[in-house]
């Protein structure tokens, strides 16, 4: 340990920056910081590696397990959707809950006291990461389809409409934003993850026991309303149903969670 600052010595006077002339931190820079925070911890890095590995594994399994006529680009891509949708929301949850669980919020919200800007940066960061992850799925599905045609004498059809691209992105981005919203609302990693996975089970249980829930479930249950997204059978009515359920399960928690985060006190030890 070097004692390189001498006590009592009169050193050069301090540079004093004008507060009035200092620029606020641009949102793009905050977003880049939040993106980096998604990958610079073991938890975040392994989550992303797991998403990549599982996506690749699903493509490989589909390549060898599916009948040759089903080896099309659309089918390969569909195979990747569910495993990605299971893990992506956790990314959204972790980006918020680690600020409280690891108490890094003390630093984050001291360097940018306008918490709404941090939430905006986190939202943009998980959307960018979600898009990147879906792009990996598009690439791996293409590799799978090419290999299917070459090795398994597969169908090899590349048919995949613009609507399919929109459906896929919508499906995954809804889940990642829902994760972020639940993370802000619950502020606890385990609690938010359990809630995310418990909601569909709870709906399933209610639907099975109370007929009324089955009726409104068509409009309210996110698991039901996103099915046409994964099968690329979206109609005007299914978009409306999706909108209602996204409002209830994504936008409402997002707004409530956002408000909670703005108000919540950050404590030191």
């Amino acid at each position, binding site marked *: *340990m*070097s*004692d*390189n*600052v*001498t*006590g*009592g*010595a*009169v*050193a*050069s*006077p*301090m*540079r*004093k*920056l004008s*507060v009035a002339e*200092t*620029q*606020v*931190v641009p949102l793009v*820079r*905050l977003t*880049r*910081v939040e993106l*980096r*925070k998604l990958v*610079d*911890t*073991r*938890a975040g890095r392994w989550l992303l590696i797991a998403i990549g590995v599982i996506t690749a594994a699903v493509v490989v399994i589909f390549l060898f397990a599916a009948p040759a006529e089903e080896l099309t680009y659309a089918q390969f891509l569909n195979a990747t959707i569910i495993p990605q949708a299971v893990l992506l929301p956790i990314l959204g949850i972790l980006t918020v809950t*680690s600020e409280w669980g*690891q*108490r*890094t*919020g*003390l*630093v984050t*919200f*001291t*360097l*940018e*006291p*306008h918490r709404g800007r941090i939430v905006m940066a986190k939202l943009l960061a998980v959307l960018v990461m979600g898009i990147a992850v879906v792009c990996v799925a598009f690439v791996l599905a293409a590799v799978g389809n090419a290999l299917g045609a070459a090795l398994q004498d597969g169908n090899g059809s590349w048919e995949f409409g613009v609507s399919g691209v929109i459906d896929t992105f919508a499906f995954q981005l809804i889940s990642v934003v829902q994760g972020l919203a639940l993370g802000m609302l619950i502020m606890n990693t385990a609690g938010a993850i359990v809630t995310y996975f418990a909601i569909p089970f709870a709906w399933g249980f209610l639907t099975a026991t109370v007929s009324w829930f089955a009726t409104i479930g068509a409009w309210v249950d996110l698991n039901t309303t996103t099915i046409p997204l994964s099968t690329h059978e979206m109609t005007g009515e299914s978009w409306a149903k999706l909108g209602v359920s996204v409002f209830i399960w994504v936008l409402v928690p997002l707004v409530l969670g956002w408000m909670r985060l703005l*108000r919540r*006190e*950050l*404590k*030191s*030890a």
Partner: protein
Amino acid sequence: MRVITLDGLTKRYGAYTAVDDVSFTVEPGNVTGYLGPNGAGKSTSMRMIVGLTPPTAGHATVLGRPYKEIPNPGLHVGVLLDASAQHNGRTGREVLALSAMLMGLPTKRVDAMLEMVGLNAAESKRRVGNYSLGMRQRLGIAHALLGDPEVLILDEPANGLDPAGIHWMRGLLRDFANRGGTVLLSSHLLHEIEVIADELVVIGRGKIVAQGSKESLLESSGMFVRALDDEQLAGALSNAGIEFTRVAKGGFNTHAGAEDVGRAAAGAGVVLLELRTADGAGLEDMFLTLTADDAREAVTT
């Protein structure tokens, strides 16, 4: 110019008042020590200054405005509230690199800060989860200084530092204040703070119980006198009508002037070994007395 002002700052949690109408100012070129027993309200006050905890009443400003209204505040105010509040999975270097990126600073600033706080390349690449408390404090101080601020707000920065580390930090803060910077640091240990601070604010159970320059607070603790034969001295002081209190290790504290004490001793032919301003022990007595009613444990002096 007042760099930090607290004006009637109050925080209540239900019926419990953590910080009760606290007002003081911190001037540039000074190290101001915020002293009080554990749970006195030091950390809560500091969190209110930087806007992490909304006050129930009153307000605080830094550099003339509420902390929230300082753009890119890391460039103006270095804050260390809790050295353990870092992601255990990040390396020390990464912690600094993230904040440097946010503030818009070049990477070489990270290296400079790591070197300044004495974290070597190998240590900086270890995860913070594996750091000792002393290393976390050094990292926290590096983090506070990263943006080259003119104000430092540090909560218990000496916690976990070894004596060499405390000596190093004392030099660093002294130099920072000598260059015109402003430092507010808290501690629950008097010995730690009395060697660093110029100004003291003493808080107990949420209320300010004393404030002023270290010298003025020291002065109020009076003179210390010790003789070859303390019993003989006690007699001489009593005869001269001088009030005194016995110090456990030998000698007496008194509020009488040095001349009066010296004359009383000389008149009785008492051989004095020491006659001087009461030192830190006197300030400690004051600290313990001031906070005794408010401390969590009963204090016996």
